[in-house]
């Protein structure tokens, strides 16, 4: 966060409503929290808001304060994994990281052992945190997640942040997070969720219910570069988060492919799988491996001084390691191997401490960020939008190795990690920030504000287009003034579910209203008042699809909005009727239809609808794509 908020123009000096922001309670479902972190210093915070009905699981070594006003842990089976701390204290670091991204206070000169130096801060630093520990070292059980939602909703939180998810798609009411976030929505609480780290394959998104906000991860303009200098003086730029400084010392270099351990040969040992490399020959050396390993993977070269990994995998999935490490691309990697094979003296290299560099073409979607389309309801665009999730510096638990590897002896108060887990709390904070200006807005109104004001992202540099970034990158300042919002109520979601095959009887149990399904036609999806437009179609099928939408005026009392369709595809005709909406009151609602006709010619064809009154640009992505 020492860069991420500034990157999106959300400086320390942005306008705030402190009295309201300090009443915002963010519920964080994660691995707990480290209350002594400087990010959670409660000096200057008043008593918890009167609406707070939650509790703190106090113990001899854990208590809450005026910043962390609630903390509970959930372990329904009562059996605790070895090494985990019972209670809400975060023995992992992840929950502390995400909570501080949302609502950590300002901490000057924060860094990870010198890297990423700056002011660490949450998006809503005055807000209060309620930590719900549902994740342990063996995962996060559905029973515990639901129990935490059950409590958080009743406790009076305003927003829920969930940087967790399953490994595949489940129907809405067979998924604990979709169920929990539905009941949160019913009570006016927005749930912001990470989409998962299974990209870049399509349909890997795991949190996609239309009543929640699904967040993808993207880069900021800061990156960490880790240089490797060979004994002959040549230098190559790699990536990693390397806090080690070996002061330029040249260390003997060995290629893992040259030191296989029987029965394996070079073709296996070169990839540095565990037990395939002769550990006697790595001692005191830097080992070159032909693959990118996870931090714990350095056990394969146990005893080595450092590791140089080289392959063509993405350079945005960076990690810190228990030993000095750098990840080179294949060209640089080939030159390193050629040097090892050709030098007349003992090959040597050094791995330098990482330095900050400006990343060009930011933001772009992280390779690891899960992609749409929505696996259950393809005609609802998911993810909704993206936020910073690459190399984010935020608070950490000082008992947990920053790389996650057991072999890592470092202990830090701030750690740099990547994931949609990090993107999600940025968006949660942006939603909380908007809510501090508009406390009465519904979850869908907050969603709409964030989606329609998102900074557009480049389809050229992000070939998966909306399936990578949704509407684009969050713009917290812009989202305060969206002009128009696409609102939706519980009843609207129930009507949507009718079309998804749920019966009236079942939906009456869910919504406790006497709503009936007026239509069980799957086309109800096109009438859900969603702030984006998606159409899954067939290449040979002529398209003729109508979407019904209603917008609410939240900008200027008197305003005339004109619709502009940005559509680069001649094969698709997109019409808006009416194309002009005139408002005479705030809160006034007006309806319109979008019709898409034609035939699809490419896998994904993107367009957008912009309502413009000269002051606000209310932008909705339109994505037409080939099913499967």
């Amino acid at each position: 966060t020492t860069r991420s908020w500034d990157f999106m123009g959300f400086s320390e000096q942005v306008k705030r409503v402190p009295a309201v922001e300090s009443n915002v309670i963010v519920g964080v479902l994660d691995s707990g929290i480290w209350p002594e972190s400087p990010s959670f210093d409660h000096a200057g915070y008043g008593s918890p808001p009167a609406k707070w009905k939650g509790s703190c699981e106090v113990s001899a070594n854990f208590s809450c304060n005026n910043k962390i006003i609630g903390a509970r842990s959930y372990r329904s089976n009562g059996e605790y994994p070895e090494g985990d701390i019972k209670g809400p204290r975060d023995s992992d670091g992840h929950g502390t990281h995400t909570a501080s991204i949302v609502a950590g206070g300002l901490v000057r000169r924060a860094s990870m052992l010198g890297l990423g130096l700056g002011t660490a801060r949450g998006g809503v630093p005055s807000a209060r945190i309620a930590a719900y520990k549902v994740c342990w070292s063996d995962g996060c059980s559905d029973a515990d997640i639901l129990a935490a939602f059950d409590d958080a909703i009743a406790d009076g939180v305003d927003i829920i942040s969930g940087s967790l998810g399953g490994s595949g798609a489940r129907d809405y009411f067979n998924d604990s997070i979709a169920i929990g976030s539905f009941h949160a929505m019913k009570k006016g609480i927005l749930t912001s969720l990470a989409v998962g780290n299974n990209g870049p394959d399509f349909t890997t998104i795991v949190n996609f219910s239309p009543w929640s906000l699904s967040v993808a991860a993207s880069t900021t303009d800061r990156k960490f570069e880790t240089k490797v200098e060979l004994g002959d003086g040549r230098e190559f730029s790699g990536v990693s988060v390397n806090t080690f400084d070996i002061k330029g010392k040249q260390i003997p270099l060995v290629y893992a492919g040259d030191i296989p351990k029987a029965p394996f040969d070079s073709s296996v040992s070169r990839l540095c799988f565990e037990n395939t490399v002769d550990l006697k020959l790595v001692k005191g050396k830097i080992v070159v491996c032909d693959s990118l390993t996870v931090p714990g993977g350095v056990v394969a070269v146990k005893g080595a001084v450092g590791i140089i990994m080289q392959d063509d995998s993405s350079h945005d999935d960076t990690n810190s390691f228990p030993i000095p490490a750098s990840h080179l691309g294949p060209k640089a990697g080939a030159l390193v191997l050629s040097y090892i094979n050709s030098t007349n003296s003992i090959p040597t290299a050094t791995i330098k401490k990482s330095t900050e560099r400006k990343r060009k073409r930011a933001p772009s979607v992280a390779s690891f960020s899960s992609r749409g389309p929505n696996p259950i309801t393809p005609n609802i665009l998911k993810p909704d939008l993206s936020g910073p999730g690459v190399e984010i510096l935020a608070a950490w638990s000082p008992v947990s190795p920053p790389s996650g590897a057991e072999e890592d002896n470092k202990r830090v108060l701030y750690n740099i990690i990547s994931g949609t887990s990090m993107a999600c709390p940025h968006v949660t904070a942006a939603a909380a920030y908007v809510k501090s200006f508009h406390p009465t807005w519904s979850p869908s109104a907050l969603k709409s504000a964030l989606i329609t004001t998102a900074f557009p992202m480049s389809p050229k540099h992000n070939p998966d287009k909306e399936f990578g970034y949704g509407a684009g990158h969050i713009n917290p300042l812009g989202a305060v003034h969206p002009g128009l919002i696409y609102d939706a109520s519980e009843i609207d979601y129930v009507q949507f579910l009718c079309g998804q095959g749920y019966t009236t009887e079942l939906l009456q149990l869910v919504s406790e209203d006497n709503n009936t399904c007026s239509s069980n036609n799957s086309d109800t999806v096109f009438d859900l008042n969603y702030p984006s437009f998606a159409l899954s179609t067939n290449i040979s099928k002529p398209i003729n699809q109508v979407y019904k939408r209603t917008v609410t005026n939240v900008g200027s009392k008197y305003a005339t909005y004109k619709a502009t369709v940005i559509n680069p595809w001649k094969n698709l005709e997109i019409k808006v009727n009416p194309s002009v909406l005139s408002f005479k009151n705030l809160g006034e609602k007006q309806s319109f239809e979008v019709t898409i006709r034609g035939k699809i010619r490419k896998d994904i064809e993107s367009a957008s609808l912009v309502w413009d009154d000269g002051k606000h640009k209310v932008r909705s992505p339109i994505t037409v794509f080939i099913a499967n």
Partner: protein
Amino acid sequence: NYDSQKTYIVYMGSHSKGKVSTSSHHIRLLKETIGSSFPPHSLLHSFKRSFNGFVAKLTEAEVKKVSEMEGVISVFPNGKKQLH
């Protein structure tokens, strides 16, 4: 055969007309559906505050019976999710 039990989530939607369902209510429902031999300790947790449902250890045959119980929306295994 309680050796073959697994933990399941039984989701029952909202609390009916604001009435909170208690653990004893859920045990009563389970006994009515599965049989009076259902051991109360197999009910691991009841969701009481914001929505209706419970977590219980059930056999596959019991899952089938509970799925058909009035007021049940879904029954699914208590799986594991991961941090992202």
